């Protein structure tokens, strides 16, 4: 029964494809790809709608108020109301804006986010497009986001938009390096860039109940935390939402966009969040594997979406809790702390692997990570000399 | 119609000549750099076409050369664009017809 539920979507797709068995080969491949694409879009667009209302409700609860609760039971139909509102708004384009660039920017941002969702394994045998260099594909697509953000800022012919776009690109480019270097230990240990292989390498249990997820190793835990922070930055979420700083530069590169185009920007940001959370689940949290052996009767795709949901909850939680960082603090953090820690992760993974992957090697790699961390925390703040604080009115 | 090696080579020469066109006929320094980058991309396409249409299973030589060529193209773009910015700061122009003196 559990096997049937696990492969239910794969069986459904085979069923549909069997109806086209007499068609030529290229038509069969096209139909197969179309089914994958339609399923992906259906799942993630409805997830987007759900998360947009859940985010508002969770943020509201953190801030001790109720969220949207008028439309539908507990406000869960709010996305429908939002969608209708966005669609009927007037589409204002500034007169001296670059029309083609202004139009293409939101499309490209949403397109790159959806493309990146295609290589993630959502369950056993459930990867939409298994490309041999899957992880590289993800990062190649992610690096085109910077160009789209620039197009959005430039096409608006607005100095604030341009400023927001420059800040966004500077932030994204700086954090791409820690993001990619943190993934390198995982690729090194597994020996493949194919996400399916990476998930398969995290199966199995030691001592009967400890799963082989990479987040439970020292380099994996550090890598996961660094990846999480870099993912926060790449999706322009608080505490790193300097590009969208609502109290500073209105909406940054999205200022001149109204109605449906703004909704597409919103969609692109959330889908980017889903894509990078999905990658974090695949690389560090064991993909679609269950955490304990006796829980394996639950279908694999259910485990994947549960882990994805947990990560999105932490994203929203961090947004509601932490204040925004200054743009120079963001840059300092990337280049002076995260990059050396990411390199330390690679070193720790190598130590773990060559010391035999036993408990001793676990302790040795933990030692490497802690050594670099304490060295950085000691010597990075050494240059700053703060004057003694003086209070003018609080005596 | 399966494409033959000749078709790929004609395509990459067309791309190369378009890059040459951009490098020779524009007067803005950044346009010229765009042309140079396009010429490098066309050359890489040539390498991969020859690798693919050679005897199989082929050693990955064509792929390796192209990977290194792309890396070098990136390095050269960085330095070239830094030069353009430095010249602009000094002479306040990017029109290559006006950048004709060695004395700063």
């Amino acid at each position, binding site marked *: 029964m559990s096997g049937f539920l696990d492969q239910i979507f794969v069986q459904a797709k085979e069923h549909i494809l069997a109806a086209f068995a007499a068609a030529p080969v290229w038509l069969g491949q096209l139909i197969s790809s179309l089914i994958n694409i339609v399923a992906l879009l259906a799942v993630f667009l409805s997830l987007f709608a759900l998360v947009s209302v859940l985010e508002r409700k969770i943020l509201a609860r953190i801030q001790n108020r109720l969220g949207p609760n008028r439309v539908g039971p507990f406000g869960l139909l709010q996305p429908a109301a939002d969608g209708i509102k966005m669609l009927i708004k007037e589409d204002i384009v500034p007169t001296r804006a670059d029309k083609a660039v202004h139009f293409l920017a939101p499309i490209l941002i949403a397109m790159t986010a959806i493309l990146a969702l295609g290589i993630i394994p959502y369950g056993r045998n459930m990867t939409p497009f298994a490309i041999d260099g899957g992880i590289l594909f993800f990062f190649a697509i992610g690096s085109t986001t910077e160009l789209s953000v620039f197009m959005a800022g430039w096409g608006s012919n607005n100095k604030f938009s341009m400023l927001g776009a420059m800040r966004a690109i500077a932030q994204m480019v700086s954090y791409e390096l820690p993001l990619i270097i943190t993934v390198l230990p995982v690729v090194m240990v597994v020996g493949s860039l194919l996400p399916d292989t990476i998930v398969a390498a995290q199966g199995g249990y030691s001592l009967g109940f400890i799963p082989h997820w990479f987040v439970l190793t020292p380099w994996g835990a550090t890598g996961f935390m660094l990846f999480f922070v870099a993912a926060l930055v790449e999706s322009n979420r608080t505490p790193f939402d300097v590009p969208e700083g609502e109290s500073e530069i209105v909406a940054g590169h999205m200022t001149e966009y109204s109605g449906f185009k703004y909704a597409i920007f919103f969609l692109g940001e959330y889908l980017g969040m889903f894509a990078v959370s999905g990658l974090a689940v695949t690389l560090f949290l064991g993909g679609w594997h269950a955490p304990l052996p006796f829980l394996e009767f639950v279908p694999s795709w259910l485990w994947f979406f549960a882990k994805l949901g947990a990560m999105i909850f932490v994203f929203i939680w961090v947004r509601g809790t932490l204040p925004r960082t200054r743009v120079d603090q963001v840059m300092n953090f990337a280049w002076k702390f995260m990059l050396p820690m990411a390199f330390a992760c690679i070193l720790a993974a190598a130590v773990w692997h060559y010391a035999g992957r036993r408990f001793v090697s676990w302790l040795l790699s933990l030692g490497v990570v802690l050594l670099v961390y304490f060295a950085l925390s000691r010597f990075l703040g050494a240059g700053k000399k703060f004057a003694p604080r003086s209070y003018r009115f609080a005596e | 119609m399966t494409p033959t090696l*000749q078709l790929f080579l004609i*395509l990459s020469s067309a791309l190369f*000549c378009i890059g040459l*066109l951009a490098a020779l006929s524009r007067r803005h320094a950044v346009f010229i750099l765009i042309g140079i980058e396009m010429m490098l*991309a066309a050359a890489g396409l040539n390498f991969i076409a020859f690798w693919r249409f050679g005897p199989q299973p082929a*050693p*990955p030589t064509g792929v390796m050369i192209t990977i290194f060529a792309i890396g070098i*193209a990136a390095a050269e773009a960085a330095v070239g*664009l*830094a030069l353009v910015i430095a010249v602009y700061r000094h002479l306040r122009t990017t029109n290559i017809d006006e950048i004709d003196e060695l004395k700063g």
Partner: protein
Amino acid sequence: MNGAAFIFIAIFTLAAALAAAALGKLIHAALSFAAASVGVAAFYFLLGAEFVGLVQVFVYVGAVAVLIVFTILLTRRDLEKDHGFNWSGVFIALAVFAGLVWAILKSAKLSSAAQPLASLTVKQIGEALMTDYVWPLQCIGVILTAALVGALVLVMEERR
């Protein structure tokens, strides 16, 4: 190899490249150049070298195009003036193209069809990079470091 895919990608790439060479506004030309790079990457996928295609998108669109765009932004006061088009460049480019096409069509051995592709996995590329090509790998690391430092030195504001 699919003939229809070849024609489609060829038209897209050549159109984007021509736009990059001929458009008046610099930003449009830079973005068309990014599109042409994606077209070339699509050709790499068609030819079976997927890793190189991904590296092409990563480096050209993610790095070179962004650099070009930043340079356009930093040299902005020049943008309103149209620098003009030098028509003799067109003749030279056409002459070079004619010469190359004549040379290609004249060589007899180039018109054979492709043999079935033995797959080249990323693992094989990695092994080749670490065994046969380890010296070029180290050299390109040095070149990239030198380019990075050189570009920074060129662009840094001078402290008085």
